[in-house]
């Protein structure tokens, strides 16, 4: 088994070594459905990007995408008051940064919503819908699927050489 594969396996087993400058090419993080969890995630994402010497701008864009998607899930996705788990995956493979958010909230395809009118006059500006629009604009590709009762929101962007 290659060294890289062993590293990946370690991370899969929950030993996330970021911050210790082990070049893990993938991190898996579980969050609770609480808004302050987004700040905890942001720190882990920043560490991942900085460990891989990726530009701050990319780190900012991925954190904004995670924030917008997870804020939607936490704010509108659940019909009970129970604690739920939201799984976040982030990986770097040959310059391609891929991310996925998986949750057991009600089925919701954010890509189905129309884009907001960003040329409207101030008074007519839509208040909602901007978050998902940011993700579409900032990423190379976005995808949604519902599988086994869970929403999977995938997005990726290639790091410029």
């Amino acid at each position, binding site marked *: 088994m290659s060294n890289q594969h062993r590293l990946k396996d370690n991370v899969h087993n929950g030993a996330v070594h970021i911050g210790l400058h082990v070049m893990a090419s993938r991190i898996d993080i579980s969050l609770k459905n609480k808004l302050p969890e*987004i700040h905890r995630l942001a720190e882990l994402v920043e560490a991942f990007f900085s460990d891989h010497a990726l530009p701050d701008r990319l780190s900012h864009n991925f954190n904004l995408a995670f*924030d917008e998607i997870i*804020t939607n899930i936490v704010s509108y996705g659940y019909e009970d008051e129970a604690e739920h788990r939201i799984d976040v995956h982030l990986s770097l493979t040959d310059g391609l940064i891929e991310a996925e958010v998986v949750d057991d909230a009600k089925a919701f395809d954010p890509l189905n919503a129309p884009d907001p009118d960003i040329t409207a*006059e101030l008074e007519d*500006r839509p208040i909602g819908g901007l978050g998902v629009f940011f993700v579409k604009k900032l990423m190379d590709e976005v995808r949604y699927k519902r599988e086994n009762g869970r929403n999977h929101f995938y997005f990726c962007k290639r790091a410029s050489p």
Partner: protein
Amino acid sequence: MEMIEESLGKTVVVTVKGRLDSNMSKGFETRLMELSEAPGASLVIDLGEVSYVSSAGLRVLLLAVRKVKAGKGKVALCAIQPQVKEVFDISGLSAVFSIHPAREAAVQSVG
């Protein structure tokens, strides 16, 4: 996040520090709305120490600007960091907000 309020004559300068996102304090939104609703308000929002703005933050700024305009007042934003400016640009809000690089110019524009 933090919010500092200063009065320069009839202009109020609000300096925000930290992140403007879905975790921002309710107190900040409430206070900003109070300032924006004052008839003929003259308001500057200094974002020089804001490192991050999400759509939740933009929503509050958009509401504030609308309220000031509805009360025939003037409002300007200033010192927006590049990564935050990108979010303003994508949302199209750069075109409808009055934005200045320097705080002094923003204060003059609403005076």
